């Protein structure tokens, strides 16, 4: 990937009516990158996007485009275009005129406009819809018009705010693939907002996980999934067992009433930590002295796998397995040192509140 920084956010903060919505956000976005902002509702994704688009001015911090500060440059002078969540197509114009809107402003020749609009409608598979009224199109079609309209201006960066939020699952999957193709074909940067972790993991080069106005972690989908930096990211990016533990020394951690060998180091001696183990990394084995033993409380068929809840002492473990043990039987819980992810405790009580919210009833531990 080209490592040219195209957009930089430096210490961006923003408050609305005294409520701090963004807290010193730092972020670099590179040329031709597919970046996704991922986080729960209200965490500031849209606000960050609107700051890049120029619709919101940050209270403090700098927005740089190609190294130049653009904090006060209005939207119409920025080399970015936006696909709005509810499409925001102009109802009084037909498909052709919607797509041509930006070109007309540039006073292009009619023949050039026609050629460009045709090219864009081709790109989004809407050829032949030129004369249709946008109000009579289906949701998916409206979405395509919105994408064509935004791309017509040949932006360096395309901003997309939950563009597939209103579509059904099937159509969503199709559009995800198409959007990715379009991005690769045009070789431009996409900044994509979603609260769907699966969507973020499948489409992105880089995922930015946000919570409570702060960036939690920036990394490739693999990084984020395999090496979550804290319990929040681990929980948000997929189901997890999160248990309180104590790091005795490098490669040695105590949790669930026992000592385990792990692959993490660099913690203070006796530092309290969160231990994360993914449900799919756990194997169920016959009970023995070398593993944690527990009572199977419930088994739920989930399609691809069974979701098995096992109680061991005060901990409730979630396990994904293709084989179902009997409810009420005693089983062993087995995992390897690589499956144990150790993370520092979050300082922020707010983060734990958000985490509880995500957890719902399926808490990792019960005290």
């Amino acid at each position: 990937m080209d490592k040219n920084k195209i957009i930089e956010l430096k210490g961006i903060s923003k408050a609305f009516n005294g409520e701090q919505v963004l807290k010193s956000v730092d972020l670099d976005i590179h040329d031709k990158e597919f970046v996704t902002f991922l986080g729960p509702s209200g965490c500031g994704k849209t606000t960050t996007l609107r700051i890049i688009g120029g619709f919101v001015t940050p209270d403090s911090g700098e927005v740089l485009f190609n190294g130049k500060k653009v904090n006060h440059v209005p939207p119409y002078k920025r080399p970015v275009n936006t696909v709005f969540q509810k499409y925001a197509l102009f109802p009084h114009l037909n498909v052709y005129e919607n797509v041509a809107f930006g070109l007309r402003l540039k006073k292009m020749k009619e023949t050039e406009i026609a050629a460009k609009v045709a090219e864009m409608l081709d790109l989004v598979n809407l050829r032949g819809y030129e004369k249709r009224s946008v109000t009579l199109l289906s949701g998916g079609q409206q979405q395509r018009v919105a994408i064509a309209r935004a791309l017509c201006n040949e932006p360096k960066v395309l901003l997309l705010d939950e563009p597939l939020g209103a579509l059904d699952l099937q159509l969503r999957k199709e559009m995800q693939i198409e959007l990715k193709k379009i991005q690769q074909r045009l070789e431009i940067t996409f900044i994509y907002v979603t609260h769907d972790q699966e969507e973020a993991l499948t489409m992105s080069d880089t995922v930015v996980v946000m919570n409570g106005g702060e960036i939690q972690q920036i990394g490739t989908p693999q990084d984020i999934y395999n090496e979550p930096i804290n319990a929040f990211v681990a929980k948000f990016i997929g189901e997890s067992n999160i248990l309180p533990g104590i790091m005795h020394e490098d490669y040695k951690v105590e949790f669930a009433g026992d000592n385990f060998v792990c692959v993490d180091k660099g913690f203070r001696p006796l530092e309290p930590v969160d231990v994360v183990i993914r449900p799919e990394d756990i194997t169920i084995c016959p009970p023995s002295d070398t593993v944690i033993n527990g009572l199977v409380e419930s088994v739920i068929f989930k399609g691809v796998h069974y979701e098995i809840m096992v109680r061991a002492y005060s901990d409730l473990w979630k396990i994904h397995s293709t084989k179902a043990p009997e409810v009420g039987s005693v089983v062993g819980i087995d995992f390897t040192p690589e499956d144990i992810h150790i993370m520092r405790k979050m300082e922020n009580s707010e983060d734990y509140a958000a985490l509880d919210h995500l957890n719902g009833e399926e808490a990792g531990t019960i005290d």
Partner: protein
Amino acid sequence: MRKLANRFYMGLVFLFLYIPIFVLIANSFNASKSRTVWTGFTFDWYRKLFHNETILKSLLNTLIIALIASVLATLLGTLAAIGIYNMKKFTRNLVINITYLPIINPEIVTGVSLMLLFVALKIELGYVTLILAHVTFCVPYVILNVLPKLRQMDNNLYEAALDLGCTPPMAFRKVVIPEIMPGIMTGFLMSITYSIDDFVISYFTHGATSQTLPITIFSMTRRKVSPEVNALSALLFVAILVIMIIMNVSEMRKLPSDQRRRAAKAEKKGGRA
């Protein structure tokens, strides 16, 4: 049985409402000057009406004033609606209520106070004061018609226009105005009808040479109701009726497209590109 009774009752109500107008229209074709005897059908009163200098002059006054006042009120009202729409919630509610006031306020109060104001400011009563007065009572109707259109508009439309390269004034002209146009038009048409219709406020704010039609009619009837007035009133009734029909038909025309829009939304779930 019950249905029949309902119909009958409805019929009675409408009869009660419209009988005076039908009597008036019938009388305008009555050859006799008397309002009680029918002596034959005639167009005489209409012919005379169109030779009556005073009436024609005041008709012209009414139309000119209605047009100028409505254009001004539409401009002012539209801008005001946009301003109100962008206010903070508390100030917005406050201003909207203040806007309602001239509508609720008895016309006679508005009329008298406007007259007192003009006199105090030493503005000679005439065309200018009439137009100012009509603008005053028309603006609220424009605001009340434009505001809902602004509320219905997707907030992102304006931003989308900026995003695609419009400066704020251009975005306004190319996107916001077309979106709220139906509201602006209804406000304009309502202003015209209310302006033509107005008697009380005009009565207090007109000058010697700037009589509007309702005032002229009033002064004619003070002596004796001339059948010419019947003819004129009949014409006015028909004119207003036509405007009403046009307004309603254009509303109806819009309805199916709205319904289609809703249908398209419902279809979205199953729809495919």
